């Protein structure tokens, strides 16, 4: 799947995360998080899994995390991709 436009999903509430997605040549995932030290790699793995599932090779993914659990990370990423797909 091709990222063709700038979209966002999620909120800045606690236990949630905000995702900004925009077109880019390579795949770049930037993570800002209240629990960055312990969980950044887990958040990154979860984001990559969703991108993999949707066949996304390139794009800039900026994440501001407020301690979101896996189910919320996946859901917000899926929503961002869905919004990117909408014409």
């Amino acid at each position, binding site marked *: 799947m091709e990222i063709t436009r700038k979209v966002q*999903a999620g909120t800045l509430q*606690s*236990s949630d995360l905000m995702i900004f997605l925009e077109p880019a040549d390579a795949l770049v995932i930037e993570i800002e998080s209240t629990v960055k030290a312990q969980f950044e790699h887990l958040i990154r793995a979860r984001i990559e899994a969703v991108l993999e599932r949707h066949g996304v090779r390139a794009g800039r993914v900026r994440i501001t995390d407020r301690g979101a659990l896996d189910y919320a990370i996946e859901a917000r990423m899926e*929503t961002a991709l869905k919004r990117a797909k909408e014409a």
Partner: protein
Amino acid sequence: MNGFRLRRTLLYVPGNMPSMLQNIPIFQCDGVMIDLEDAVPLSEKDAARILVRSFLENYRERNKELLVRINPLDSPRGFDDLKEVLPALPDGIRLPKADTPEIVETLDTLLTEYEEELGLELGRFSILPSIESAEGIINCVKIARSSPRLIGLAFGAEDFTASLEIERTKTGEELFHARTRVVWAAKAVGIQAIDTIFADAGDMEGLRRETELIKKLGLTGKSLVNPRQIEVIHEVFAPKQEEIDYALQVIEAIGKAREMGTGVASLGGKMVDAPVVKRALRVLKTAQAHGMVDVELDEEVIYGKE
């Protein structure tokens, strides 16, 4: 009643708030209604249904009834909600704006199709329609009969009073007839009647008064938006100790009468007839569900065999 299930408190949880969704396992209410409708702004409807599906998929061992309030079926949003969340197997759907039997039938046939597609037992998904307009109140007798999936009728005063262009007051005289009609319609087909929310979460006395009134009218539970209201509602619906003691005596009197082969039991000189027995049984079942009593309720002994 098929499967006596307590629904004293049905708590609304906003569908787009992970912090609230994640508290569902620890809330002490009887059931939760995850809200994709009024609690979610238009711009977030897509995000909320994906979040709720993802949450339900990861919340397998459930300790309470899980309903999802979808958007009304007079717009594509309601259908999109069903498509997204049903595969994650909520227990049932709260249907807003259930003004006619036909709209409930439409949901009924849709749920059948999903059950067939997902290879589930037909009739697995239940329906709790919101009766929340003048038209809904007028039609609620037919709505109550419109599908075997109905677990109850839920009265919604916010939209109801709006549809009548009147104020929703704390003493609730304006809701009296609507509530009693919802109770009659529900009891006529043996399903529950759930009352509307009490919006002022700070006014516990007002909540208690309203809950005592609706219990007296025959409603069996209440919707709520604030977890702090759960305890008060459970206290009101819990049977009083003297009610339980009396009910135990009734069942005992019946048991003795059966042993002696006499058809009619008496208690304190008064005859114990069928409605008294039925009420005693209901009190004990409710008490049991509250964990207030542990008694073997052998319906054959109580009602006798043919």
